[in-house]
């Protein structure tokens, strides 16, 4: 019975999502008609058409896959480093003092400021990865440290008394209480990784990259292409976000703690 309720819920959510997307596509069509300049806004239908054409070329898939791997690499690196940095800053006072300025710099410094320096050390195809890391890392860091700080002290005392050990305390107390913070950061971070990574691809107009295609569409004033490629970016980001949330949830269930809205759902 519970599974029926659940699948009903999923169906309803899917349905509501579809209606909402339809609504926004109507808004888009309206904007297209209102602006009336093909060079500024193109119609959704045309974009769909163009996507249909693009989909048929193998180069489309190469582009998508290469960009996706680049951005996923940046995202994962950002997650690992951000979580690592958060643990370091919360665990050690020296680590905290040393890392805080670095994170401050990462957050605020625009890519333009160090791109030349970065290009000396890395290939231009690595710059998007780097840009994604720089945007994901601070988000992860902020949330995970907040989660560590907000871990219930009374439960930590309990873990100490019952000698959970370091590993046990992390697994049984810290991980479950940091998980919602981590999940929230991952959700934001995935979108932002795309934003930052594709922006870097645009700047270096990398061949066989989504950003490169956006750059080309822009300088050749191919507005339909611009919209189509942007739609691909948005779609991929949303899909990967969903996939990642499922993965995090599955991992949570697998390791015996739950990240969902409440423990009731179990």
């Amino acid at each position, binding site marked *: 019975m519970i599974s029926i309720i659940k699948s009903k819920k999923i169906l309803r959510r899917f349905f509501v999502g579809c209606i909402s997307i339809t609504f926004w596509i109507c808004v888009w069509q309206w904007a297209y008609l209102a602006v009336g300049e093909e060079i500024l806004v193109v119609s959704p239908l045309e974009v769909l058409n163009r996507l249909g054409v693009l989909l048929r070329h193998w180069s489309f898939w190469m582009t998508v896959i290469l960009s996706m791997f680049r951005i996923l690499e940046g995202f994962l690196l950002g997650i690992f480093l951000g979580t690592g940095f958060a643990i370091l800053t919360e665990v050690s006072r020296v680590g905290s003092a040393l890392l805080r300025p670095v994170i401050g710099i990462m957050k605020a410094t625009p890519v333009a400021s160090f791109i030349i320096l970065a290009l000396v050390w890395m290939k231009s195809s690595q710059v998007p990865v780097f840009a994604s890391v720089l945007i994901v890392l601070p988000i992860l860091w902020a949330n995970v440290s907040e989660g560590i700080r907000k871990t219930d002290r009374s439960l930590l*005392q*309990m873990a100490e008394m019952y000698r959970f050990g370091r590993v046990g305390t992390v697994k*049984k107390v810290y991980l*479950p*209480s940091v998980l919602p913070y981590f999940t929230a950061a991952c959700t934001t971070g995935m979108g932002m990784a795309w934003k930052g990574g594709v922006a870097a691809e645009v700047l270096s107009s990398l061949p066989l990259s989504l950003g490169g295609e956006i750059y080309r569409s822009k300088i050749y004033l191919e507005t339909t292409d611009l919209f189509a490629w942007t739609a691909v970016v948005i779609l991929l980001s949303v899909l990967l976000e969903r996939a990642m949330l499922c993965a995090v949830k599955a991992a949570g269930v697998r390791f*015996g703690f739950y990240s969902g809205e409440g*423990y*009731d759902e*179990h």
Partner: protein
Amino acid sequence: MSIEIRSASKSYHGAAVLNNFSLSLPSTGTVCLFGPSGCGKTTILNCIAGLESLDSGRIIGTENLKISYLFQEDRLLPWNTALKNIEAVLPRKNSRALAAEWLRLVGLEAAADKYPCQLSGGMRRRVAIARALAYGGDLLLLDEPFQRLDAGSKDRMMELIEKKTEGKLKILVTHDKKAADHLSDIIYHFDGKMIKILDNINSERQHYT
């Protein structure tokens, strides 16, 4: 093993809770701390457990001691079921069966897979008791173990505690005179300072007001 508190002092924001307080504990039996709300009983247990530090004075004999502390609040892991909460304090080997057995002993075999927020107040308390006993510390700190329990459960829990911790030192904090009377060998009345009102280890058990 004998535990001694030597001229311990502790104050919060200038208000003294423990003031040059000394106490010698026997090596076995049940010592009951009795006293009005807010007098500092939980603070003493926390200090013995090493969770809070004294402003001055020392506590001797608790180093490396395995302590089962039944907290005044239940402190169950909200993201684990009742069963997993008990498993968490058991050595990995056979932990599942052992935990299930402990749940059975506190009458919660049916609630093994419920999360703390799905348990009633008294059920949560019993899980906490089962966890403290399952851990099997050499010293038991029991902070109001029987709160939220009905008379029947309370009797069963008292019996269980007595049976499972024979020969170990228990420090019991309770407001329940009958339970204190039933379980304790020594009863102290604590209100700023300690007054021994019953000492069953050396003398006859006697009724107190």
